[in-house]
């Protein structure tokens, strides 16, 4: 019976004998999750555009100063944390554990800073009367969509920080290998990538249509 299993159909990459994508299952699973998450955010941003077009009196509370300046600083922080992440992954591939852990902690620090700045902005908006269910202009859809999208993104950043801290400490203790660091890197770059669409679509497009 075993001899028959070595025929051409089973030894092809797609027959289950070899990995067709030549990556391990953790990385593959993360890629599949990121595809589905991309679609979640794409749907939310398109829904945001839709309700925005449907409302002539759409609130535009994001002035160049302080809102767009603040969001630009947040973007640069997230972008910078992506650089430290990618350097951390390189260090992990070179088996330089202490350097990789340091880069991972820097990355998590960037995420925390991003969250703090974002929450500060949220509380400023709350003080001005913008909440997830109401706005001073009487367009509750703005609150729902703005806080929905940025809140979902903030949740991703927060989960990412926790994830990175777990990986950093586990990798330092040799419980994880460089692949685990790389997979956490994929997630973190994705969080950065999503913000690269949220920032222009919501903050920079805060102009009169």
């Amino acid at each position, binding site marked *: 019976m075993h001899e028959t299993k070595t025929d051409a159909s089973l030894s092809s990459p797609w027959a289950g004998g070899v990995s067709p994508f030549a990556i391990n299952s953790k990385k593959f699973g993360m890629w599949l999750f990121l595809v589905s998450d991309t679609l979640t955010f794409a749907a939310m941003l398109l829904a945001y555009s839709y309700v925005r077009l449907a409302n002539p009196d759409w609130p535009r509370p994001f002035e160049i100063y302080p809102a767009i300046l603040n969001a630009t600083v947040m973007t640069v922080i997230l972008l910078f944390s992506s650089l430290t992440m990618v350097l951390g992954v*390189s260090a992990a591939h070179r088996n330089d554990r202490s350097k990789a852990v340091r880069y991972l902690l820097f990355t998590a620090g960037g995420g925390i800073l991003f969250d703090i700045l974002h929450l500060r902005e949220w509380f400023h908006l709350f003080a001005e009367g913008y909440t997830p269910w109401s706005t001073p202009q009487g367009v509750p859809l703005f609150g729902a969509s703005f806080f929905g999208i940025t809140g979902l993104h903030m949740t991703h950043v927060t989960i990412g920080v926790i994830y990175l801290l777990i990986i950093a400490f586990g990798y330092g203790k040799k419980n994880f290998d460089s692949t685990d660091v790389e997979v956490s890197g994929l997630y973190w770059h994705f969080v950065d990538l999503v913000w690269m669409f949220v920032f222009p679509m919501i903050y920079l497009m805060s102009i009169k249509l």
Partner: protein
Amino acid sequence: MSNHEESETHAVGSTRLFVTVWIWLAAITGLEVFLGYERLQPGLMLTLLVVLSLVKAALIVTYFMHLKYEKLSLTLMVIPSTIFCICMILIFFMPDALRLLQIRTH
């Protein structure tokens, strides 16, 4: 299977490459903020911002997420399916959204 092990541990770009990519990303972000400051026509601005963001996304996925260094089969599975699904959402939303915009301006 030994082939598999090798492809997991191959070199995935140098520090110099990553810093170069990062500078490009920062520069494009700067350009986007400048566009926000300039307050162009909404249609033109939206197009420019979407194109610039797609360039940034491509840079992040290609270099930071190492897709360039993976087997082509992974890219072919991940990217076209995502683009297809987003196009499907767009096909359902766009005509209606444009109609809304026209109703508004009249």
